[in-house]
């Protein structure tokens, strides 16, 4: 392989406001993501909604991960190894759409986020690279 895996991985961490779902995050978030996946069945969704803490106790989440799930702190969950398509099981169970949940991670009010999207979305200008500032 001609590619330097360490340089390749380092570049993935250079993008502002973004957590690329690398192997390290996949390892860190394995139980968190599998917990979220369990919400794919109606029975589990009912049990979860009836007793969130009790349900979480059945999974090997770290205390930080469990707190972030209970707080629905999605940016924190991304930092702790959560992947958006798995976290979607949690916010879908709460009745949130992708537009609402994703918008909330941007720190913007829902109507401001929606207005930005309708106006053409967020420009990549200045958000491509931390190092280069481009």
């Amino acid at each position, binding site marked *: 392989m001609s590619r330097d895996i360490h340089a390749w991985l380092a570049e993935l961490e250079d993008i502002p406001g973004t957590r690329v*779902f690398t192997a390290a995050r996949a390892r860190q978030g394995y139980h968190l993501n599998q917990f979220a*996946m369990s919400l794919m069945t109606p029975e589990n969704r009912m049990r979860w909604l009836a007793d969130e803490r009790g349900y979480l106790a059945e999974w090997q989440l770290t205390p930080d991960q469990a707190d972030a799930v209970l707080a629905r702190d999605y940016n924190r969950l991304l930092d702790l190894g959560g992947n958006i*398509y*798995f976290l979607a099981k949690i916010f879908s169970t709460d009745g949130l759409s*992708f537009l609402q949940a994703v918008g909330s991670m941007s720190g913007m009010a829902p109507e401001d*986020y929606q207005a930005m*999207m309708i106006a053409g979305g*967020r420009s990549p200008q200045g*958000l491509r690279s931390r190092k280069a500032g481009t």
Partner: protein
Amino acid sequence: MARLTAGIASSHIPALGVAIDLGKRGEPYWDAALKGYDWTRDWEAAARPDVVILVYNDHATAFDMKIIPTFAIGCGDRFAPADEGWGPRPVPVVEGHPGLAWHIAQCLILDEFDMTIINDMPVDHGLTVPLSLMFGQPVAWPCKVVPLAVNVVTYPPPTGNRCWLLGEAIARAVASFPDDLNVQIWGTGGMSHQLQGPRAGLINRAWDTRFLDDLTADPQRLRHIPHIEYLRETGSEGIEMVMWLIMRGALGAVRELHRHYHVPASNTAVGHIVLEVLP
């Protein structure tokens, strides 16, 4: 013999499926995103493919973190629309083509692409939304489907060049299948979107437009775009566009028949193109 006649690329945004299922076409927001597919539905009614090889990604539906196949091919008789957390979409069951699928699987493995073979899996919006966009709301889908699932969730996804080469190998496999079949290949996902973090909502119309242009003007450039460029320029989920290169790699010389680009549908830039294989 089986022959590849056309390629289609399209976003597979779940909200477009919901808009179709709930009859929201009358709303200007959804009409703007969906109307670019009207041309294609008419064209497909005349093109009448027997089989579509449908390249898509699973979104934590059939595959969770237990097993992560890079390239998986659906060889079963049928694939049920998945319950993604709010009940299955009200769309027909997807009929497979096990004969062609197993033929392609064997050819690809002998061609040194080590495929994962799937006999039984539910299919999520990544596969069913493009069917709805291209065929509308029939009681049964008008063709068989060979699902080809690509990992673009856990890094690293396959490189664009690897996807292109897989497409070339699929074309060779189709050409050696003895039945007389009209086959299309669809690449789905994209275009620019980021569904996470403070940079959520990123859209890059200029980059997307050049990508659409170069599917005909300079496809060789596209196969060498590195992962980091998709991430920086098109958002973390823009990486799905490597799946378009499986479609493009399978086609050889083409001409563009139709395209549609619209921002936004939900968080995403809708991109769609129809390519006809030149004889």
